[in-house]
């Protein structure tokens, strides 16, 4: 399920394995969330259904719930006796809990609002009249969506990509509940840092924490810079 870590020097330090695993988890989750968040955000932006508020509340739950609560329920549902977990076992022969696949599912739920909300906001700000113009010029609804709505929602996509990636990178509680601490499978960087601190290995904890801190800052900083530049043009 996970790709081999690059052999090169960049990843040649203690804790590199968990960092690489975190990046893979964050990237996979981000891609899936853009795929899920696009139709969901579009539907939320356009619908007048009475289910809209219910769906919005469910999507926003991970923002307010303690990760342990989310993780606890996921552990039950994804476990070998849970509804999804047992189905997954019959399908693949493997358990979802304490596996990378389980982490991906958990992360998707955990970071869902960070992808859906920026996309929904961007789609709500679209001018429907531009879409009408595109249809009259011969573009089907799907065509107009990809050629007009998506490019005009570029800022929303940027936020969704950056936030869902960065938020997944920083998750801890949910991972601990459903993923445990299996090297190369579920031991992501936040768990590794926790382990190092627990074993009083402060030097390694310092190093990894600093990497994560700088990385998170740079990602958010570049997002705001790009956003500002787009705002001006």
């Amino acid at each position, binding site marked *: 399920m996970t790709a081999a870590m690059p052999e090169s020097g960049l990843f040649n330090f203690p804790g590199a394995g968990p960092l690489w695993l975190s990046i893979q988890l964050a990237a996979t989750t981000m891609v899936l969330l853009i795929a899920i968040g696009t139709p969901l955000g579009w539907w939320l932006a356009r619908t007048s259904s009475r289910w809209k508020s219910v769906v919005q509340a469910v999507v926003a739950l991970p923002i307010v719930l303690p990760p342990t609560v989310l993780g606890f329920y996921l552990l039950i549902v994804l476990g070998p006796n849970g509804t999804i977990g047992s189905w997954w076992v019959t399908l693949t022969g493997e358990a979802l809990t304490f596996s990378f696949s389980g982490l991906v599912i958990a992360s998707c739920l955990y970071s869902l609002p960070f992808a859906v909300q920026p996309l929904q906001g961007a789609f709500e700000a679209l001018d429907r009249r531009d879409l009408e113009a595109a249809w*009259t*010029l011969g*573009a089907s609804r799907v*065509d107009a969506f990809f*050629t007009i709505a998506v490019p005009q929602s570029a800022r929303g996509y940027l936020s969704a990509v950056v936030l869902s990636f960065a938020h997944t990178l920083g998750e801890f509680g949910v991972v601990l509940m459903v993923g445990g601490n299996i090297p190369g499978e579920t031991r992501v960087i936040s768990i590794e840092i926790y382990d190092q601190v627990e074993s009083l290995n402060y030097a390694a904890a310092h190093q990894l924490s600093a990497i994560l801190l700088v990385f998170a800052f740079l990602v958010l900083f570049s997002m705001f810079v790009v956003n500002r530049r787009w705002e001006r043009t």
Partner: protein
Amino acid sequence: MSITLRYALQRGDFGLDVDLKIPVHGITGVFGESGSGKTTLLRCMAGLERPAIGRLVIGSDVWQDQSKNVMRPVHKREIGYVFQEPRLFRHLNVRRNLDYGWRRRNGRSDASGFDHIVTLLGLDRLLHRMPEALSGGEAQRVAIARALLCAPRVVLMDEPLAALDRARKDEILPFLDRLHAELSLPIIYVSHNIEEMCRLCDHLVVIENGQILANEDLQSALVRMDLPILSGDEAGSVIYATVKDYDADYELTRFGFSGGELLLPGQFGEVAADARLRIRASDISLCRDRPEHSTILNILPAVVEELQGGRSPSILLRLRIGTDRLIARITRRSRDELNLQPGDTVLAQIKAVAVRNTARGGV
């Protein structure tokens, strides 16, 4: 070949109920006040009003007929839609805005071609600009070109000049004249501006409260006198004339038409150029005998065809001059003092005429 359409739509207390047959050549004006249903009618034709029930046939193609379960989606209707606001895609430059429809025209043959349309609308130097760097008039010209470039079979224009000021309007009108002269595409042009209608349209549909009041050629619609919307201050008629000669000394152009000649100040086009003249009802006065000394150059014999009755201080009457018809506004008192009756021969003094050349090459 013609366009036939029938639509019924109820929305709140507004109802649209139309049944029309319009020609597929020239410009058909759809004239009415705001809220009369003009825009809704265009949107129905484009397929943008989903709940509208009706039937739309372009030539021999049925685009919509719910009774036969035919409903072409918007993007499958070969229309060029020019909205009131330009609606350019702000993330694409002018060229890529124009390309948007051009690339989706499904290989439909298009005699005019990309460069021709770009030149026709004077966009050659704007192609690399972004929409926000265009003036209102430029943006609307791009929008018109974009609509023409998707190889439409009918162009729908929804008050394309309404959002522009006088100067911007004057900038675009000559381009619309050129479209009219050079392209054989049918254009349906919605407006509440009678001046624009008189300048551009060949055929006029008058709509009020979602109902069609008139559907005939421009000249005969203008002289009907029974349509309040065409009988107000702006009432007037249109005649087609030809340039005969130009008096360089007095700077007067002589026009010939079915009822005689008209001398108008200014130079308008070459000899034999076709022109469209608009004469407002309030610019015509009548007399029984030819005045011996008058500053009015154009005094033509005319026959009174019909007079409005009623008790209002001023009335309209319809005159026949040659094969053309003009309407004039006079006071009720004048009507009674001159004892004007249908069939009377009178002299029409024409004080002012607005000239527009319909000849190729512009004004």
